[in-house]
C-alpha cells in the first residue's frame, strides 16, 4: 500500500484559476517519485499540499491526501499538523533562506526531536552529531554551534538534509533541492540525498526540472502540465516509451550531456497547443460536472 496517496486533488487561487487539476499520485514506502513539469506547473503546490503549508491565498476545492491511509484533509488542523510533523519532512529549495538566522544550527536540527517527539536533549544532540557525520560534515560539534551565516550554501543544504532525516520520517518532500546551489556541489548533494534515501528506506517525492536527475534517482514519475498530471509511469517505462506527447517532447528536449545547449524552446508549439487544449477540455468537463451536480 502507498504511504502517500493523493486522490483527485484540486487547488485553486481563491476566486481565481485552478492551480492543480484532480491530481492523483502514489508514493509507496521507500520509493522515489519524481515530479517534473515546466515552471509554474504546480509541482511545489503538490509538495506544499502534502506538508500542509499551502499559502493562504489558495484553497483546496476537492480531493484527498491519504497519509498512511488517513485523509489529512478530513482531520482537524492540529491533528493533521501532528501527523505530518511525525512522519514527513521537507528538503527545501533554497538553503540560504531555510535556516533561521537567529538560531544556532544545533537546535534547528534537534528542535522537533526534543519539543515534539520528547527526546532528551543529550540524545537529540548525539543524534544531530551522527547526522552531520552522515552528511559528510567535518567537525560536527563546531557546526552545531555555528549560526547559518557562518556556513556556505552547500554546507547549509547538507544541514537541511540532515535535519529532514532527523526524526526518521516515512516521507520526504524534496523541492528542487539542488537548483539554488553551485553546479559543482549539485551532484554531491544529489548523490547524498539518494544515498540517505536508500539507507534509511525513506519514501521521497522529488520535485525537479531535470529528467537526467529523474533517471538516476527515481523509480516513479509524474509529469505535470498546468496542474494536470499528463503522465504517471515508472521511470523505466517512461524512458523506454513515454505515453503522452507532451512528456515525449519533454524527454526529446532534454539535453544530452554531450550537447548541453540543445534548443532554447524545447517543446514544439504544436505539442504545447495540444496539451493546452487538453487542459481546457478537462476544465469544461469539470464545469459540466459541477452543473449537473448543482
Amino acid at each position: 500500500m502507498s504511504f502517500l496517496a493523493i486522490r483527485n486533488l484540486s487547488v485553486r487561487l481563491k476566486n481565481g484559476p485552478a492551480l492543480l487539476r484532480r491530481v492523483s499520485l502514489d508514493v509507496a514506502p521507500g520509493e522515489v517519485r519524481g515530479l517534473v513539469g515546466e515552471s509554474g506547473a504546480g509541482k511545489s503546490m503538490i509538495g506544499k499540499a502534502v506538508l500542509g503549508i499551502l499559502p493562504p491565498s489558495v484553497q483546496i476545492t476537492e480531493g484527498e491526501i491519504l497519509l498512511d491511509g488517513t485523509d489529512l484533509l478530513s482531520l482537524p488542523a492540529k491533528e493533521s499538523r501532528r501527523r505530518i510533523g511525525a512522519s514527513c519532512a521537507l528538503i527545501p529549495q533554497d538553503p540560504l533562506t531555510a535556516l533561521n538566522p537567529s538560531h544556532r544550527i544545533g537546535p534547528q536540527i534537534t528542535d522537533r526531536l526534543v519539543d515534539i517527539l520528547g527526546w532528551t536533549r543529550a540524545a537529540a544532540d548525539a543524534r544531530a552529531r551522527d547526522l552531520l557525520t552522515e552528511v559528510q560534515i567535518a567537525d560536527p560539534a563546531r557546526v552545531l554551534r555555528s549560526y547559518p551565516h557562518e556556513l556556505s550554501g552547500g554546507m547549509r543544504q547538507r544541514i537541511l538534509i540532515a535535519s529532514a532525516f532527523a526524526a526518521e520520517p516515512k516521507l520526504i518532500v524534496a523541492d528542487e533541492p539542488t537548483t539554488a546551489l553551485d553546479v559543482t556541489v549539485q551532484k554531491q548533494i544529489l548523490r547524498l540525498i539518494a544515498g540517505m534515501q536508500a539507507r534509511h528506506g525513506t519514501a521521497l517525492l522529488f520535485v525537479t526540472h531535470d529528467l537526467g536527475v529523474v533517471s538516476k534517482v527515481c523509480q516513479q514519475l509524474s509529469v505535470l502540465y498546468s496542474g494536470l498530471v499528463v503522465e504517471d509511469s515508472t521511470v523505466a517505462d517512461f524512458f523506454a516509451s513515454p505515453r503522452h506527447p507532451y512528456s515525449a517532447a519533454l524527454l526529446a528536449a532534454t539535453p544530452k550531456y554531450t550537447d548541453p545547449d540543445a534548443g532554447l524552446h524545447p517543446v514544439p508549439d504544436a505539442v504545447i497547443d495540444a496539451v493546452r487544449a487538453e487542459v481546457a477540455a478537462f476544465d469544461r468537463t469539470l464545469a459540466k460536472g459541477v452543473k449537473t451536480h448543482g
Partner: protein
Amino acid sequence: MQILRLTILRLLTTLVTLAGVAVIVFFVIRVVPGNPIAMMLPPGATEADIARLSALYGLDQPLVTQFGIWLGGVVQGDFGTSITTRQPVLDLVLGRLPATLELSIMALVMAVIIGGAAALIGTRGRGTRTEGAVDVANGMALSVPDFLWGLVLMLVLGVLFPVFHISGRVTPSLDLPFVTNFYLFESLVRLRFDLWADLVAHMFMPALALAIPLAAVIGQLLKQSLKETMNLDYVTLARTKGYGETHVILREALRNAVLPTLTLVGVQFTFLIGGTVIIERLFSYEGLGNMAIDAVINRDLPLIQGIVILFAVIFTAVNLIVDLAYAVLNPRLRHA
C-alpha cells in the same frame, strides 16, 4: 569587539553633539525676550538693584564671555546656580531626573507590553477580523497625541471613576524612607509594597498617556515585520515539523521581526521622553519636564541650559542603548 568599537565611536560623536546642543541652547534662550533679573526682584526695584544683581550672576558681561564662563564650569561638572532657587543647577536637575526616568521607563514597559501584545494578536489573526480590530485600535491610538490621551485618562480614570491619583508623584502625607530619588525602584528594594502601590497609582495615568502612541507604533511596525517574517522559508520549514502557529510566531519569527523595528522604536522612545514635559505638567508630576516649564516661565537661564543638556544626554544614551541592543540581538553583528 564590534560592540566595544561601536560604544567608543558613539561616545565620541556624543561629545560633539552635546557641544552643539550647548552652543545652541545657550544663545537661543538669550535671544528670546524676557529678563530673568527683572522677574526676580519685587516691583519697584531700582536700576541700581538690577545692575547689581545682573553683575552677581555675570549677566552684565558680553555674551561670548558668559558662554566661556558657563562652558568652563560645565566641563568641570558645574552647571551654575539656578536664578530662582539659588541652588546648584546640577543638584536640582539630578534630583528630578529619577522621577522622569521612572516615568519614561514605566511608559516604555507599558508600550512594549501593549504594542507587543497587539502585534502578536494581530499576526495570529492575520487576514481575519481580529487583525482589522488591531489595526483600527492602532490607528486611533496614533491619531491622538499623548497629552490628549492624558486628559481623556484623567477624566475617565481620575474623575469619573477615580481609580488613580490625578496629580503628584506620591501622596504627600506618606512617610518616605527613601535615600535616593528612584522612589519606585527603591520601594521595591525595600519591599515597601504599600509605597510602591501608591507610586504606581500616581504614575499609572501619565505613563499610560505617554505609552499609548508608542504602543501603537510598536504594534504597527512589529505586526508588519512579523507578517513578513511569517512568509519566510525557515518559518514554513518549522511548520512542517509539527509546530503550532503560536510557537512559530514566538520562537521562529519574533526575534527576527524585532530587529528591523528596533531603531524606529528607539527614535519613538525619544519622542516619548520629550512628551514627559507636557505630561508631567498635566499631572503635576515632579520631574524634569515640569521643572523645565517652570524654568522657562521664570527665565531661569542656567536651569534651562542644564535641563536641555541633560535631555540631550538622555536622548543620545537611548540611541546608544538601541544600537547596542541591535548588535546583541543580531548574531551577524555579534560575531563580526
